[in-house]
């Protein structure tokens, strides 16, 4: 199954990466094993988002920058408004990074 490394930049991914870094640098863990853990994280995170998350969000805002490179869209929004079922958040500046979902199904 193909996976994105995209989610490694999320909080949970960063926490894992930091942990692995520390353990590798202290020789507790081999780099190869650390990579395997990260790859597994890619899979598990993707699966969890597909199977466990049901919420919908709408995003509105002023598009400051858009970029499409290597099948990755990057948007930088200004004064963005995020709405989901029970709350909404205003953000002065937000970056959206999105990989092509079709790449996963291939």
């Amino acid at each position, binding site marked *: 199954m193909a996976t994105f490394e995209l989610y490694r930049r999320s*909080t949970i991914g960063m926490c894992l990466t930091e942990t692995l870094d520390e*353990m590798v640098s202290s020789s*507790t*863990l081999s780099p190869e094993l650390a990579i395997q853990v990260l790859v597994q*994280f890619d899979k598990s995170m993707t699966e969890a*988002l597909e199977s466990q998350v049901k919420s919908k969000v709408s995003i509105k805002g002023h598009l400051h920058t858009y970029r499409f490179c290597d099948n990755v869209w990057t948007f930088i929004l200004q004064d963005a408004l995020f709405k989901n079922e029970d709350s909404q958040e205003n953000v002065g500046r*937000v970056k*959206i990074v999105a990989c092509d979902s079709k790449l996963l199904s291939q």
Partner: protein
Amino acid sequence: MASFTTSSVYIHVIEDVINKVRDEFIKSGGAGEAVLNELQGIWEMKMLQAGVILGPIDRSSGQNQPSTVSAITPVHDLNVPYEGTEEYETPTADMLFPPTPLQTPVPTPFPGSADGSMYNIPTGSSDYPTPGNDSGSNTDVKGGRPSPHMQPPSPWPNQRTPLSVDVNVAYVEGREEVDRATSHQPLTQDFFMMSSGKRKREDFAAQYQNGGYIPQQDGSGDSTSEVTKAEGSKGGNFLDRRDSATTAKTKAFAHLARSSTKIPQLDGPIPDPYDDMLSTPNIYNYQGVVNEDYNVVNTPAPNDLQAATPAPVPQNDTGDDDDDEPLNEDDDDDEDDLDDVDQGEELNTQHLVLAQFDKVTRTKSRWKCTLKDGIMHINNKDVLFNKATGEFDF
């Protein structure tokens, strides 16, 4: 609610990852399950500190014992070793947890406990108090949610907080020690360099001269060479006095040592200095062992204050090269650390959405996109979504 589901999804992901890499850890002469448990512990601790997972972690999926009791009791276990034997007896009795005494003597919580059930003990306990330090939301949840945790020992809560701090400290210190152990040599070296960069180059040169002189002077003694070092340009004269027979050679080698251009010419006849020449750069670049020599030479450095004059230019260059590498490494490390901190702060403050796109369209300046399976980090909260629609004007 959103954050709550986020928390549960995160916990699920953590457990899923841990469970699915367990085979890799156990087989292949790998790190072993204890390391895996440590990984999970640190990971969860970081998540708690980041405030993206909440409260004590429910082990519903139960890679360990499914009973909630086991999840609770461990809290005491962890505290026990820290508090000392007196405290430890009480909780043990309360817990009806026979294996506990075995664990208790283990000084450090993590490395000692090998299997998953034991491991979760520290996780639970360390996680549990942590939220109190970090964010109010976690504390609230903690208070509201886990009645079982609150119940058992009223005396414990007081002790837990400091204990948990100890856990973290123990972690960090332990890790740092390991780091130091691995990179001890460079550190020491850097220290010397930073304290006396100039001197060191001279030492270096002096040492180098030693290498050049050695074939001739070794018999007479190290003191000679040290004097040479110390007196620098006068050294040549001094040597002349002591060893009239080799005067000519000595001078030649003094020049030799100072000008790299002459070295290749004279090296041929005398193998030792040539070898030194060849080996020196390699040694300094790649081997830690010689770094010790380096430092040893450095240690008497204060005596070499006078030697400031003689340091030969070409040798300074080589010295610089060698100096620069470790110094730069160190600098990089520092910068990296700072960068990490910066990034960490940025990540906490920066709003980021990570997702997959199904479709992105544009009509004039109006952009529409549909995203799915996203993680949003907005206003210090993590929110997950299954689908998202975006409408942006450019």
